């Protein structure tokens, strides 16, 4: 199957349609909520939560003995939430900084989860196989009920987000100030964190514990490059996430032996790379172009300033001078002289240049920076 065939089949084939819809919805909710994580500078929280969810999956299986994804994800949710609150507890009750708390919880929970997984694998229960798919995810195991759950949770998250948009925004920008206005910042904080945990848990089956934070952060990081507006950023991150999901699934379905989760993450990574380089305001490419242009402009103005100093010594400012006398000033080139002429600031006549009235005025005002309003 090639990609074209995939996009023809996706409308009719049940499995393909389910998986594609699932990864698209997952990408959207993760992009949306990931924006909040990125703006709160809690990017690593996602990584810690997803790792902290692993023992929950294993324990849920040990207790119930069933491998139903709903039950396992509930276990993941509980253990992810416990991990999150312990992280918050460690940061607020001890002298340890948040990176230490995140690292501790991540590795301890993940270690415990791995221990439980190996224990389960040694069990004679034939049902045990396949729990390790939660490590790297397996989109192929998505069924309709999983996708339905994703859609419901995404819908609820969207609703909560729209309802508390104002509160979310002000908390992200200035938490202390929010408190003085009388908002219960702890409630808003817990609400945002809870939604992020939900999104992560939803993605465990598809993308897995290890790569989950990438799908949370990459769309948001890419979206931030393109806009200075919070709502646009969240929307764009959701779109990039959804597109990464669909395109990642398409690539992985059209090749054999490419697992979906890592491909989705790589597609999102390409978005990030592209955005870092090509975004017009914050991208590296345009920054370099602006830098070069500024440098050329500056050179031009320096040359003009030098000419101005010479012209000042004469009664007639447009008195012609030999180009040669610019030789003790190193900053000019034939190109910059030509450019000065096209600007109408000097006139060139053979080997002579003369300042125009306009150029004189320009040079005079160079240091008079006027307040520039939009």
């Amino acid at each position, binding site marked *: 199957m090639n990609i074209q065939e995939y996009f023809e089949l996706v409308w009719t084939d049940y499995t393909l349609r389910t998986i594609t819809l699932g990864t698209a919805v997952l990408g959207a909710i993760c992009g949306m909520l990931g924006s909040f994580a990125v*703006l709160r*500078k809690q990017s690593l929280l996602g990584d810690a939560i997803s790792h902290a969810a692993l023992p929950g999956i294993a324990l849920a299986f040990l207790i119930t003995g069933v491998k139903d994804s709903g039950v396992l994800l509930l276990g993941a949710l509980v253990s992810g939430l416990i991990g999150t609150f312990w992280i918050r507890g460690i940061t607020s009750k001890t*002298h340890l900084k948040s990176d230490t708390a995140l690292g501790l919880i991540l590795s301890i929970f993940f270690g415990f989860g791995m221990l439980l997984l190996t224990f389960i694998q040694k069990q004679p229960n034939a049902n045990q196989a396949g729990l390790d798919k939660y490590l790297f995810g397996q989109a192929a195991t998505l069924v309709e009920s999983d996708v339905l759950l994703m859609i419901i949770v995404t819908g609820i998250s969207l609703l909560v987000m729209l*309802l*508390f*948009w*104002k*509160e979310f*925004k*002000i908390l*992200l*920008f*200035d938490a*202390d*100030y*929010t*408190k*003085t*206005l*009388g*908002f219960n910042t702890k409630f808003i904080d817990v609400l945002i964190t809870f939604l992020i945990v939900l999104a992560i848990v939803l993605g465990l089956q598809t993308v897995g514990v290890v790569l989950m934070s990438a799908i949370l952060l990459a769309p948001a990081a890419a979206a*931030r490059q393109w*806009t*200075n*507006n*919070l709502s*646009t*950023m969240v929307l764009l991150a959701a779109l990039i996430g959804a597109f990464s999901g669909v395109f990642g699934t398409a690539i992985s379905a059209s090749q054999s032996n490419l697992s979906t989760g890592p491909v989705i993450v790589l597609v999102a990574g390409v978005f990030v790379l592209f955005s870092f380089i090509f975004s017009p305001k914050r991208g590296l490419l345009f920054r370099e172009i602006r830098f070069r242009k500024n440098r050329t402009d500056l050179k031009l103005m320096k040359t003009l300033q030098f000419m101005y100093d010479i012209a000042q010594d004469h009664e007639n400012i447009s008195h012609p001078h030999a180009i040669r006398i610019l030789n003790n000033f190193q900053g000019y080139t034939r190109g910059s002289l030509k450019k000065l002429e096209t600007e109408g600031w000097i006139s060139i006549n053979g080997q002579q240049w003369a300042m125009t009235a306009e150029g004189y005025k320009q040079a005079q005002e160079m240091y008079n920076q006027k307040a520039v*309003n*939009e």
Partner: protein
Amino acid sequence: MENQKLAVQIDDLTVAYNYKPVLWDIDLSVPEGVLMAIVGPNGAGKSTLIKTILGIIKPIAGSVSIYGKPYSKHRKLVAYVPQKGSVDWDFPTTALDVVMMGTYGSLGWIKRPGQKEKKIALESMEKVGMLAYKNRQISQLSGGQQQRVFLARALAQDASIYFMDEPLQGVDATTEIAIINILKELRKAGKTVIVVHHDLQTVPEYFDWVTFLNVKKIATGPVKEIFNDDNLTKTYGINYKVAVNK
């Protein structure tokens, strides 16, 4: 002055971070309508005092009242200008949007800001001379402009008492004069303004009331009466030569 209403009253306030007292047994009364500077060396607890009054930091003992009631009851009478450096100015939003946040408190939960709130925000921006920058991304504002945006946000709260944490820090002379003029306008309108201030030289010129703080309260009262070498020495520990009498 005796009959004047008290805008802020603090009794026996003690705040500690990990057993180390930051504020020790503070009693402080601020009469209504003064423009007050809080001065003291680094680590004296100036910002902590404001944050405790506003309920951001919990004290281990003592009480604060705003016009005779706890802060939570009189929240709408109070506006706050935090230190400029306390937020990330690369946040994706515009100057107008930040000023609009000043109206969120009176809006309450869930309700969205509308035309009325926008009008309030625009008026506040005009007062601080930032109207021309209303659609600017906040990261593209200069330090002085960011400070004015914070001031406008507090003005949008339309409060009776304004708490400001170093509003003159890192701003140029023009902005400083502009901000001080706004503070004087507020006092003229009968508001109480409490400012954490660092530049001792300008205290007599800008303020009419002053509190000396260094973990303990050293003195509080009218600038004319208590802004002298004695109190400065007690607060800063060294003989501080300041031109007090103009």
